[in-house]
C-alpha cells in the first residue's frame, strides 16, 4: 500500500507530538533536578533553569551519612543477586524441560507456571511469617529468593523455548561422543542460547530493580531498604515539599533501568511479546 504525501507528513507530525508528550514528564523532572533550589517552587514555573547545577545530586548522595547511596547499593545487591539466581536456576530447569524429560515432569512444569496465575500479593501474609521464622526478614538473601521464585515462570519458559529451538541432534551426537549431560549443557547449549539469556537478564533486572511491594513488606529496616522504598519514604515522610530531592532521587533511580533498556531493548521487547504471537 503506497502512502500519499500528506499521509507521510501526518505520520511524522502526529508521532513527533506524541513523542514529546511521552517524554515531557521525564524531561520536566530532569530539568527540575538541575535547577537551583530557589527556582523550583515558583509560579509561573520556569521551563529551563537559569543555570544548570548538580548540587542536588551531590546533596542527595551525601545527606544523612550517604543514606541514599546505601539504598542504591542495596538495590544493586538485591538486583544482581536475583539475576544470578534466576539465570542459573532457570537455565538448568529450562534445559531439563526441553531435553531431560521423565514421567511426571509435567507436574513440575504446571506448578512453576501456576506461579504466574497466583498473584504474589495474595501470599504476602504467609510469606512474612515464614521469612520471620527462618530469619530472612530484612535480609538481601530473603528478597533475592522471593524475587527469584516469582520471576522463575517467565524465565523458565523463556529458557525452555530457547533451548528447544536448538537442534536436539547436537546433544545426541555429543552424548555419543562421550560428553556428560552437564558438559553438553555447559559447552554446547549455553553458548548457543545467549539471546535467551539476554532476555532473562533484562527482564530480571527491570523487575527486581523496580519492585516495590515485597521490598516494602520484607525489608523495612533502613539498612537493607531498596531504592524504591527509600525514595518513597523520602516523599512520604521527610522531603515532602523538597521537590529538588524527590526529582533528583527519581532521576537517579530511573537511570540504570533506562540504560539497560536502551542497550538491550531488542531482547526485552522480544521477551515481552513472545507470548503474544504464536
Amino acid at each position, binding site marked *: 500500500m503506497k502512502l500519499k504525501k500528506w499521509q507521510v507528513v501526518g505520520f511524522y507530525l502526529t508521532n513527533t507530538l506524541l513523542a514529546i508528550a511521552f517524554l515531557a514528564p521525564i524531561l520536566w523532572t530532569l530539568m527540575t533536578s538541575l535547577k537551583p533550589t530557589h527556582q523550583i517552587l515558583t509560579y509561573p514555573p520556569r521551563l529551563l533553569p537559569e543555570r544548570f547545577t548538580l548540587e542536588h545530586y551531590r546533596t542527595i548522595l551525601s545527606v544523612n551519612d550517604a543514606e541514599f547511596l546505601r539504598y542504591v547499593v542495596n538495590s544493586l545487591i538485591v538486583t544482581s543477586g536475583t539475576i544470578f539466581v534466576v539465570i542459573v536456576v532457570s537455565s538448568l530447569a529450562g534445559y531439563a524441560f526441553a531435553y531431560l524429560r521423565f514421567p511426571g515432569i509435567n507436574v513440575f512444569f504446571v506448578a512453576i507456571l501456576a506461579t504466574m496465575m497466583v498473584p504474589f500479593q495474595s501470599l504476602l501474609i504467609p510469606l512474612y511469617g*515464614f521469612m520471620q521464622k527462618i530469619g530472612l526478614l530484612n535480609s538481601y538473601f530473603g528478597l533475592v529468593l522471593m524475587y527469584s521464585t516469582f520471576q522463575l515462570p517467565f524465565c523458565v519458559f523463556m529458557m525452555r523455548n530457547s533451548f528447544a529451538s536448538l537442534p536436539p541432534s547436537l546433544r545426541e551426537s555429543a552424548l555419543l561422543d562421550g560428553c556428560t549431560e552437564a558438559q553438553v549443557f555447559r559447552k554446547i547449549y549455553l553458548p548457543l542460547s545467549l539471546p535467551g539469556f539476554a532476555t532473562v537478564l533484562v527482564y530480571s533486572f527491570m523487575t527486581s530493580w523496580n519492585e516495590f511491594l515485597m521490598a516494602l513488606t520484607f525489608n523495612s529496616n533502613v539498612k537493607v531498604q531498596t531504592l524504591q522504598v527509600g525514595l518513597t519514604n523520602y516523599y512520604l515522610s521527610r522531603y515532602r515539599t523538597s521537590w529538588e530531592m524527590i526529582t533528583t532521587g527519581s532521576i537517579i533511580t530511573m537511570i540504570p533501568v533506562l540504560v539497560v533498556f536502551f542497550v538491550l531493548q531488542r531482547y526485552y521487547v522480544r521477551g515481552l511479546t513472545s507470548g503474544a504471537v504464536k
Partner: protein
Amino acid sequence: MPNLYSIQRFFSKHRTGMLFLAPAVALNLVFFIQPLIRVIQMSFYNWRVIGTNKFLGLGNYQRLVNDPLFWRALSNTVIYTLVVTPGIFLLALALALLLNRKLPGTNVFRTIYFVPVAISFVVSSLVWLWIFNELYGILNYGLSSLGLISSRISWLGSTWMARISVSLMVVWKTAGFSMMILLAGLQGVPVQVYEAASIDGASTRQRFLYVTMPMIRPTFILALMISLIGSFLAFDHFHVMTQGGPANGTLTIVMYIFRTGFEYFNLGYGSAMSIVLLVILIVLSVIQTRFLDSDNVE
C-alpha cells in the same frame, strides 16, 4: 506393582533431569506452594503473631462480607480497573495502528512510547505528583495559560479527581506495553490478506473491521487481560500518590490486605481477603486462557 527396586531404578535413570530441575522445584515449593497452602489454612483462623491460634471456621469470611471497608476497597479497585483499562487500551491501539507502517523512524517512536514502561511505578508516581502539584505544578500552569481552567485544580483532592489523575499516570506509564503486544499481533497479519481485500474493493475502514480485527483478536484479548489483571493488583502508585485517600476513596484491595496484615496484624482476616483476591485473579486468568484457546481452535 511399584516396589523399592523400581523406584530406585526410576531415580537413577532420571537422576540428571531431576538434579537440573531441583533448584527450581525447591524454590517453587518453599516460596510458592508452601505459603499458598498456609494462606488457605490461616484464613480459617484468628491467627496470632504470638500465642495460640483460634479456629474460626468461616468466621473471617463472614466478617469480610459484613465489612463495608472491604466492599469499598473492592469497588474502588473495580472502578479504577474500569477507568484505566479502556484508557490504556485505546491509546495503545491508536499508537499500534499509527506505527504499523514501514516508514523510517518507526523504531525510534516505538522506543520512545515504551520508555515509561521501563520506569518503576514509584518513580512514575513521583514524577506525576510533581506535575500534578496544585501550587507549582506544570499541569495547572499549562492549562490556565491556555485559558482552559480559571482556578487551580486539586488533582488528587477528591475521590474522582484522584482516580482520574492516577489513571492518567498509569495510561502514560503502561500504554507502550500494550502497544508492543498489539503491534506484534498486527505484524503477524500477512500482507497478502490486506492486498486481497483491497483488490476485492474493501475500504480502509472495512479492512480494519473485517480483516485486522478478527485476525488480531487473540492479541487484543491478551493485551486487555494483562492490563485488567495489572489494574486489579494496583498498589504502588496508590500507596505513593494517594495513600488510599481521600477518605479511603482510592483504597485498593491489595492496599487493604497490606494494612490488615502489617498495620493491624489481623493475619487471619488478611488471609481471607487474600483468598478472595486470589480467586478473582484465577478466574480472570482462566477466562483469558479460555478465550485464547478457543481462538486457537477456530
